[in-house]
């Protein structure tokens, strides 16, 4: 059937199973928005306050479902506003297709109004990108974008379309979406070789990351851990992959992870790394990381092998395929002494925050939230101290229920991502944990959740300072509180009211419980709960940047 480029775009999105896109209109995408209007019963477009919100929403949608998130923006500033969201998705390997309109072909390269070379700008933060200048290439280019975003290690792909292409007519022929699953060639001798090392180890430890979450391999991981009795330390990106009450799961590892979890890797004689990349937040000092361990690295991306850490053996494979296939080769085993040693570290070294109900202690606030929301609620965070408190204490037991910007560390990520998650999972509660610093970056998106009646609960851990940076200034910069004490006078209750949301303020745990309960009962609009936190609260434990876990700070 003959149709214009904009209609072809909508048809291809539908072909790919897209039900929701997040975006913001503008001159270069007027034709596309016309097609979205005509097809409004077939595809939902969510209008955000800012294109950055749309890109984070597409990311949140993708993280909450595993499907590819889609965002749409106009040329020039519309496109550049997507950049932070695209980079966030890139760093955390989130499948996303970002579509931008550009000026007409004849205006390209002439510094036309609202023209930028967005393909050039996003080159280093996308898996790949395309510029479409001919309508006959549009459909297949979009299909290719979805294929690339979903295949292997996922990531964002940008498709830039000139305005004339969105108006030009061409024959549209429907196609089935491609099967993007990759099958890996499992070699028995390779499995045997790796299993031999696991079987021989006296103090083995598993270090697993977001790759296990992406391939939904928690069950398979647990089977291996139990069969060979191997403890496992998880990264922040892996939160939810293993249940928090699993005794062999040592909890989060890294700069603010559990000391015992870090020590297990530090003292292990064998580390089996699965779907994790030895980032500088875990291997804080790569030269002193796990000095006694032989390292086996399993990753879907060959380029991760030997990138940050020199390994002794490696398997290029997705986590699920690896874990499923290695299991028969691994012996049933006991590591009683090793586990006893870890138990002692847990008792002696792990940080235990002190309760105080008369004020709001971050760990207690997170504890109350975890108690009240149950297993099915999705926690979305921004970046900073609150993010670490949420990671440490929110007790998520399912994959895709803890959404956070790990690699890029994007302050302002949370609200957009929460909107995306709520749109993707309307029957689940979405709790947005933020700080007053991060929230100020993108709180404009409150209008979006009001417009769409999304009962997202925002909990602002409000210490009135830029807490994480301030914590570093306290510990490493002689308390020179440079630009971390903005003395803002924002009244969050009035702010919520102004946007048409519910706002609450609380100063102690009982007050928090009462207002959180009220917020949980609200089903048609967002709530903001302003929690007064002491500005000297720190995230502990902490491994200073560039140091080893042996240099951990606990008070």
């Amino acid at each position, binding site marked *: 059937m003959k149709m214009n480029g904009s209609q072809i775009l909508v048809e291809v999105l539908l072909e790919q199973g897209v039900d929701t896109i997040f975006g913001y209109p503008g001159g270069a995408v007027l034709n596309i928005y016309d097609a979205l209007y005509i097809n409004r019963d077939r595809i939902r477009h969510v209008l955000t306050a800012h294109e950055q919100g749309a890109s984070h929403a597409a990311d949140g949608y993708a993280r909450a479902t595993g499907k590819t998130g889609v965002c749409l923006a106009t040329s020039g500033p519309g496109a550049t506003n997507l950049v932070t969201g695209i980079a966030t998705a890139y760093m955390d390997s989130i499948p996303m297709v970002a579509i931008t309109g550009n000026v007409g072909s004849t205006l390209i390269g002439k510094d036309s109004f609202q023209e930028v070379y967005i393909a050039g700008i996003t*080159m280093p933060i996308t*898996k*790949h990108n395309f*510029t479409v200048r001919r309508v006959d290439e549009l459909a297949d280019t979009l299909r290719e974008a979805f294929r690339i975003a979903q295949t292997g290690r996922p990531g964002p792909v940008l498709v830039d379309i000139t305005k004339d292409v969105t108006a030009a007519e061409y024959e549209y022929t429907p196609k089935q979406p491609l099967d993007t699953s990759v099958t890996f060639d499992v070699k028995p001798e390779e499995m045997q070789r790796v299993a031999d090392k696991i079987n021989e180890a006296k103090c083995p430890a598993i270090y697993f990351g977001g790759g296990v979450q992406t391939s939904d391999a928690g069950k398979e991981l647990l089977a291996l851990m139990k069969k060979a009795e191997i403890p496992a330390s998880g990264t922040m990106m892996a939160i939810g992959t293993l249940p928090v009450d699993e005794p062999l799961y040592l909890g989060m590892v890294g700069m603010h992870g559990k000391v015992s979890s870090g020590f297990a890797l530090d003292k292990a004689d064998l580390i089996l790394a699965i779907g994790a990349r030895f980032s500088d937040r875990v291997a804080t000092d790569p030269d002193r990381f796990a000095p006694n361990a032989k390292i086996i690295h399993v990753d879907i*991306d*060959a*380029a991760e092998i030997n*990138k940050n850490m*020199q390994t002794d053996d490696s398997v290029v494979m997705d986590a699920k395929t690896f874990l499923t296939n290695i299991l028969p080769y691994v012996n049933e085993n006991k590591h009683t002494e090793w586990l006893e040693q870890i138990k002692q570290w847990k008792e002696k070294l792990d940080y235990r925050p002190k309760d105080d109900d008369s004020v709001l202690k971050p760990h207690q606030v997170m504890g109350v939230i975890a108690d009240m929301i149950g297993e099915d609620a999705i926690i979305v965070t921004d970046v900073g101290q609150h993010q670490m408190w949420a990671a440490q204490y929110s007790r998520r037991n399912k994959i895709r229920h803890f959404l956070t910007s790990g690699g890029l560390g994007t302050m302002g990520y949370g609200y957009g991502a929460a909107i995306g998650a709520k749109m993707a999972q309307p029957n689940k509660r979405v709790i947005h944990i933020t700080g007053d610093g991060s929230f100020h970056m993108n709180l404009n998106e409150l209008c979006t959740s009001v417009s769409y009646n999304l009962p997202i609960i925002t909990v602002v851990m409000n210490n009135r300072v830029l807490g994480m940076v301030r914590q570093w200034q306290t510990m490493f910069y002689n308390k020179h509180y440079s630009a971390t004490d903005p003395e803002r006078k924002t009244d969050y209750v009035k702010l919520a009211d102004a946007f048409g949301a519910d706002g609450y303020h609380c100063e102690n745990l009982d007050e928090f419980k009462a207002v959180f309960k009220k917020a949980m009962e609200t089903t048609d609009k967002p709530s903001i709960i302003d929690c007064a936190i002491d500005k000297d609260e720190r995230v502990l434990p902490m491994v200073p940047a560039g140091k080893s876990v042996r240099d951990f700070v606990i008070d």
Partner: protein
Amino acid sequence: MQKYILSVIVKNNSGVLARVSSLFGRRGFNIDSLTVSATSDPKVSRMSIIVQGDEKTLEQIIKQVSKLEEAIWVEQLWEEESYCKELLFVKIQASDAADKDSIREIAEVYNAVVVQSSSDSIIVELTEVPSRIDAFLNVISHFHIMDMCRSGVTAMMK
């Protein structure tokens, strides 16, 4: 630091050169030279790249370049196991006959050709493997080099 030669077959799309060079910039890899040339297939081009680094860097470069959607094939080449040449023009200051003779003598040893001789300078052309060009430049380094241009390598597996 070691030098390595890579031959990369890429899809002949607009922006592919930017994509490869952007990757090198972003990852902090050092390019010594990069040439893009046509192949028998108009849909693909060959990039011959000389990179500097150690074995670990080389491994990363090969893996990261391989990940690019438009990179079809990446291989490392060795001077002795491939056809691999680079073209050099060098303008050397030589105001007296003694200097000129001595430059001609060295040029002869390296099979370089004197393409121009003026009152105060000599221009020498040399087509050779990169390591021989390095060696030649080393030998003439005590002269004043007025200008120099290396083409970058063109290489093909034997």
